């Protein structure tokens, strides 16, 4: 009886060893992936904000419709007088806003920069502070038309 019973602890020890090995493997993986997920979630959060702001700028005219007459009282900011057509007057109204106010109205939790560039990269306007030595930054570009020429509206969101 004693000899027969010896087989069971051997099986049990082997099973336990494999289980512990897999548990340790899981814990290492969990730690690894959770760190990557946190970093990824932060990037996705920034990307979501950049996509939303870029879409708002090229697709809407802002609210209220005459927000350019009192930019500080604007509820939302848009640069388009019609889909994908940038209104230079709205652009200059946005440029006139102090950075903190623009950030608040746009609903950005991090730092931002909006750049209007020609298709070959010539800068037409810059709103906000461009990323410089930032730890993490995302940029979303949307094509639009301004004064009859194609331009890129680039929204940059970053962390210092």
């Amino acid at each position, binding site marked *: 009886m004693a*000899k*027969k019973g*010896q*087989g069971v602890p051997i099986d049990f020890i082997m099973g336990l060893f*494999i289980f512990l090995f*897999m548990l340790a*493997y*899981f814990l290492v*993986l969990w730690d690894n*992936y959770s760190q*990557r*997920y946190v970093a*990824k979630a932060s990037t*996705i959060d920034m*990307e*979501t904000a950049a*996509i939303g702001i870029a*879409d708002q700028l*090229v697709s809407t005219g802002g609210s209220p419709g005459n927000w350019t007459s009192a930019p500080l009282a604007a509820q939302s900011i848009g640069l388009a007088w019609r*889909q*994908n*057509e940038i209104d230079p007057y709205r652009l200059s109204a946005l440029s006139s806003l102090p950075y903190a106010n623009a950030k608040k109205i746009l609903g950005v939790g991090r730092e931002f920069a909006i750049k209007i560039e020609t*298709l*070959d990269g010539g800068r037409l306007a810059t709103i906000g502070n461009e990323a410089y030595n930032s730890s993490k930054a995302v940029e*979303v*570009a*949307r*094509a*639009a*038309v301004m004064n*009859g*020429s*194609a331009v890129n509206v680039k929204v940059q969101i970053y962390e210092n």
Partner: protein
Amino acid sequence: MEAQLMSRCRSMKISGRTMQRGFVFSIDATLSAFLLMLVLATTVLLSVQATGDPYEKLQVVRAGKDALVVLDRQGILSSGNATMVEAALNATLPKGIGAHISISTYQYANGTFGILDMDEYGESVPEGKSIYGASRNFVGIGNGQAANYSSARMWIWQK
């Protein structure tokens, strides 16, 4: 060790049903293998999810729609000039994105639409890649009235 082996052999002979005992061991092994596969599959799934960009498709589709709008607003889509359309397309689309445009032009007469022309621009649509689509309808104006109706369809992909 030899005594242990003999003991095991005896216990198998006592029952006289060695196949059934082997079958029990096979179930254990199959279950373990199944669990191992599950763990590996979960690991692979997690790693794939951690590296993919959830907005990749959205960005490509938006780039295509924007390009169509910009080309339409500038009158390039309706020009019928292949060189101009392709140059504008390359300049407007972000680098690393390929596109093919098909423009069908119709004329409305006697209560029906008849096709006038069909033009193709851009690169050939590749096989084995994720292809996204965008479309835009526009009207050609001549002498202050609608002369023809066009529908532009775009196939867009990441190179």
